[in-house]
């Protein structure tokens, strides 16, 4: 695959999905988690807007059927 083919066009949802999955292809589950974390950090930095991260966290937790805010940690 050439680098042009590897980059999805902005409005090609199928290619975007494949691109994300493909980035993990040779990784162990642990490496995969690390890659996702690195991707999130880089995208948050690129967006430059903390409100967009807040909105994304809320949307993602809602999609998982979880409350937007996790319960408070136990204090002892």
């Amino acid at each position: 695959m050439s680098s042009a083919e590897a980059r999805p066009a902005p409005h090609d949802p199928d290619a975007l999905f494949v691109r994300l999955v493909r980035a993990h292809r040779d990784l162990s589950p642990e490496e995969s988690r690390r890659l996702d974390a690195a991707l999130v950090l880089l995208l948050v930095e690129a967006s430059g807007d903390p409100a967009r991260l807040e909105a994304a966290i809320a949307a993602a937790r809602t999609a998982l059927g979880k409350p937007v805010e996790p319960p408070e940690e136990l204090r002892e």
Partner: protein
Amino acid sequence: MRRVNPVYPFRPPPELAHGRGSAPVVVVGAGVVGLTVALDLARHGIATIVLDDDDTVSVGSRAICWSKRTLEIYDRLGLGQRLLDKGVTWKVGKVFFRDRLAYEFDLLPEPGHRMPAFVNLQQYYLEEWLVEACTASGLVDLRWRSRVEEIAPRPDGVELRVVTPEGAYRLDAGWLLACDGARSTVREALGLRFLGKVFRDRFLIADVVIEGFAMPAERRFWFDPPFHPGQSVLLHKQPDSMWRIDFQLGAEADPEAEKDPARVAARIRAMLGPEVPFELEWVSVYTFRCRRLERFRHGRIFFVGDSAHQVSPFGARGGNGGVQDADNLVWKLAAVLEGRAPESLLDSYDAERIPAADENILHSTRATDFITPRTEAGRAYRDAVLLLAKEHPFARRMVNAGRLSTPHICRESPLSTPDGEAWAGGPPPGAPAIDAPLADGSFLLQRLGGEPVLLVFGATPPALPGLRSLSVPAEGLAAERWDARPGTTYLLRPDQHVAARFREPDPARIEAALQRMWGRARGEGIRR
């Protein structure tokens, strides 16, 4: 082991004969914080009785990193030069991930300060010197092997039962300062809730003597180093060719087995290499919590230092936070005892030091969460930050191996007069004074002392009865750091924090700010 701790003798106090006595101020705990409180009160001419259930100073190095602000406080108390002479001065920190440098920081890049960013010194030295200074003051009655067993708070004081090797006695204290550490017996006797976050990871702490070990005086922190895989390690240089090493052990480690000298030596050998000879001086295994009392003042009882709040060791915020509590409380208590201020001034201790404790707890909790991730996700983000740090500045700023202690700025202090003019810099109300060299070779902070001072730049200070003034030029480094123009005037508290600042030395505004600093309501009258 080379070090031998001093043993302070028990001397039967006169109260043992009649079974009862009284004192205006009693301090419980002769650790760094209790001794600092007693010494500072002595500098104000106030006598104290200090009770401690032990008869020596700290065993092992314990708190070792004394911050710039703490050093400035000890300079005011007369121990600054001694700390500088004996301690290891440092300001650079390096953070490694696996086998490479991930991040480096300089805590005091500019010159022109009397005190450095940090001095490393074993807690036992500081305690020994504090004992000497307290004794020399003639105002501190140090009572070793004296355990407080009962505490009965009353509206006008506190009644204590003190148990000694030669019997018990009752002591009526006008004020009780609980400086008795994280396991405070005073706090327990009062049944106060001490809530917060518990961290399960165990850490091994070792004082190691390594003669001729060539490493610069800097703080080194490793995440997942080859010599201690999967965990973190912290290295600090101390005086006497001694190094302090903290090894993270994880939550499952067996604390007793880990203290085995052969096992500790193997860990150190892995770190230093087989050819470096060393001697183990002290070893301990610890866990920690980040928590605080809901209030630090309970009527006539004050909690100071670890008895009031506890933090993780990452950031050097425990000892330094405690010394700054002492600095905050003592001038207020002295003013109340001398009749210069109403008792309500003492409530500002809570107003100013609870936010400071929260700041310390926040930073030390965040550092601990970064250093000891408790979930798979936490670990993945942590490792991702460390991997990105080499190439990406934003990730470098996220690397948190401890955000080192900086003085708290009491932004919401009831004692501060809010700014009425425009300022582009300089210490705002509630901030500690900023040091700078003066033309005569002295430093500004040394000239402030421990009483309220009016600092006036490039103008003649107004004559205000009972208020000392210090006049400095409106040009030069001091003027620059204080955003000063001719006429710029700062009112400084006895703890060298800014109470108010003005562009002109207007006596009426200064007087009003002074009243507010002493905690006097408007129209309460002027007493000095």
